[in-house]
């Protein structure tokens, strides 16, 4: 076992799947020689050659469209979109085709592809490099959306994503790319797609979150530990959503706070509240609170924090549901 961060853990998962399955190919902007701008694919071209790990011209729609054809014809493409804010040129290929080929062909063709994409803010970057666009993808029937928040889960989930028979959008929270290190087994294992994880067990309030906010929520749980016993749920998969884990937790605690950096309107929080209303309304001791990005364009770094679900804002929401 090695002590790895998220970057290294994904790299290891990719490496092992490539070793095991000759159908796996990796491509995208700067993923080959450069090893990716975040070095997630570092060293893979050296190991597996340029036929299996290659740099593409600068064309997101081309990358994803090509992945569709490759996956339908027997390969297991793992394509990288360099930043979440540059995934939009590829939206057409994802929404119009990747998500629909199975349905359109009544099951004759499918798109077992993975789109890896550094995700989220808090990294003091230029415009388009700090966004949380998951709703567009969650809202698209036929796509799965995964977002690990720890190295262990990252490795297990990337392997599952590659093996999945459906198109998977694999978001990687770049704020914690290197911030968290933990023991990651060398040996093969998978984390199931569609299963949330209780990151910390508790009894007073369910804090439901994903991505880099998981770490912030765990810190809040620590800060407040003498006062409240928080349960922190790391969704890990955003689509399909693990409704059972959410409902079971809320039934236990009777209170919920949802935390995400994506915009508030039609952010995943809205859907989670709806499901709680449908399945656990009578267990609630207080209205569910949301801590989210506002309905604005992510501000440039000097003022980005105003828009982020900071620990202060999370604590405030927890106080509100606890003191209802």
């Amino acid at each position: 076992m090695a002590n790895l961060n998220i970057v290294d853990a994904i790299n290891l998962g990719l490496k092992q799947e490539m070793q095991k399955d000759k159908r796996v190919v990796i491509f995208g902007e700067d993923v080959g020689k450069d090893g990716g701008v975040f070095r997630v694919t570092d060293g893979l071209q050296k190991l597996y050659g340029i036929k299996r790990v290659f740099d593409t011209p600068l064309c997101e729609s081309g990358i994803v469209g090509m992945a569709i054809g490759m996956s339908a014809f027997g390969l297991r493409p793992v394509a990288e979109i360099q930043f979440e804010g540059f995934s939009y040129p590829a939206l057409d290929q994802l929404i119009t085709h990747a998500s629909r080929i199975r349905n359109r062909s009544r099951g004759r063709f499918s798109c077992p592809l993975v789109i890896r994409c550094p995700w989220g803010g808090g990294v003091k970057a230029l415009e388009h490099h700090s966004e949380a666009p998951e709703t567009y993808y969650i809202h698209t029937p036929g796509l799965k959306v995964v977002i690990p928040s720890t190295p262990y889960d990252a490795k297990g989930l990337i392997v599952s994503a590659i093996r999945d028979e459906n198109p998977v959008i694999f978001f990687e929270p770049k704020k914690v790319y290197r911030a968290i290190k933990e023991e990651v087994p060398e040996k093969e294992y998978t984390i199931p797609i569609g299963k949330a994880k209780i990151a910390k067990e508790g009894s007073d309030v369910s804090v439901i979150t994903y991505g880099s906010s998981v770490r912030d929520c765990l810190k809040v749980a620590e800060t407040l530990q003498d006062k409240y016993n928080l349960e922190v749920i790391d969704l890990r998969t955003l689509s399909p959503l693990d409704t059972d884990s959410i409902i079971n937790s809320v039934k236990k605690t009777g209170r919920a706070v949802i935390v995400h950096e994506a915009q508030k309107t039609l952010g995943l929080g809205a859907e989670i509240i709806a499901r709680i209303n449908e399945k656990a309304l009578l267990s609630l001791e207080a209205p569910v609170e949301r801590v989210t990005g506002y309905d604005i364009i992510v501000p440039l770094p000097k003022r980005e924090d105003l828009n982020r679900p900071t620990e202060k804002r999370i604590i405030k929401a927890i106080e509100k549901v606890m003191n209802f």
Partner: protein
Amino acid sequence: MRNAYLRTIKRMGSRKINIIDLFTGMLGESKNISIKKKSKTVKSNGLKTIKKFEVKKLEILDINGNCNKKLMPKLSKEEIKKLYEFMILSRVFDEKALNLQRQGRLGVYASMRGQEASIIGSAYALKKDDWIFPCFRENGALILRGYPMHQLFMYWGGDERGMQVPNNVNSFPISIAVGTQTLHAVGAAYANQYMNKKVANIVYFGDGGTSEGDFHEAMNLAGTFKLPVVFFCQNNQYAISVPRSMQTASETIAQKAIAYGFNGIQVDGNDVFAVYKAAKEALDNARNGKGPTLIESYTYRLGDHTTSDDAKKYRNEKELNEWLKKDPIARLEKYMRKNKISNAVYEKKVLENSSRQVDLAVKEYESTPLQNPEEIFNYMYSELTPELKEQQEEMLKNLKEENES
């Protein structure tokens, strides 16, 4: 031929274009779709050559500061000095930005080192009423057009007020999303033409940008509607780590114009006279209703892609050293000295003056207080929506409480 003075760098005449009858799907020779009536159709292998193309390159100033007098554009000594001064100012701005970034006083920055002739030569050819559509590597062009340097520092420092192009500067905002701005320039060109404004529109993008679908759609639209746009490609040989040769199988970027029905030309992008001349001619053509042009400015990014990048990982020192010899500023300096336009005293003065201006801009940037929090909401719509107003108030209330506690 109008461009007879240019060196032909690529002939495509040997390639045949077969005419396929769309209805029968048969290879036929029934239609003569030759565009130039004069061009001869030559038979070979039973096929007619129906179109030949050439790609030209414009070079005027060599690395020793000698210029081809026949090709030299009309520029007064004062104008040449202006070009030089803006190139120096660009380099000083650039160096300062890199320094500030290293010290944590600026955010991620994209250096233009090595591309000053390309940037300044093209921007200097613009008239005041013309418009530019920049990507992120044209700070020098923006400075030349009057964008205050402290605002550029604000932009790269992560202050949104830096993005607000002053009203007297005809520039669209910096476009980070590669290639997208080409279409905006096409639309602006349509609007300007529609309103009978005799202005040209120049759009900047990199060699990598030519791979995006948007670029091709923009080229096609501009050609189809014969719009007053100049597509200015700064081919600096890399898109982050991906070399030009892996970006496209086209031997030149200039030749891409041919497919869209207008002129493309390659210029030595480290030769400010060549860049200026090509840009001026293209802009004049645009203003005079002669439609779009693609200029491939053949240059080199001497620095890293941005401050987040390490170019050593993907390119070798030998290549870098070769390009260092072609430095656009050194070349112009030699020319100016040889022609008694400048001397050491003048050069020193220009450098000092540039440093002073840049230092002042840094001072202004760093003494500007943070943007008011509520401002992050204010430009989403023409007016705040009720929901946004509520969110804005909630944020301000939270901040106030945080400050009090």
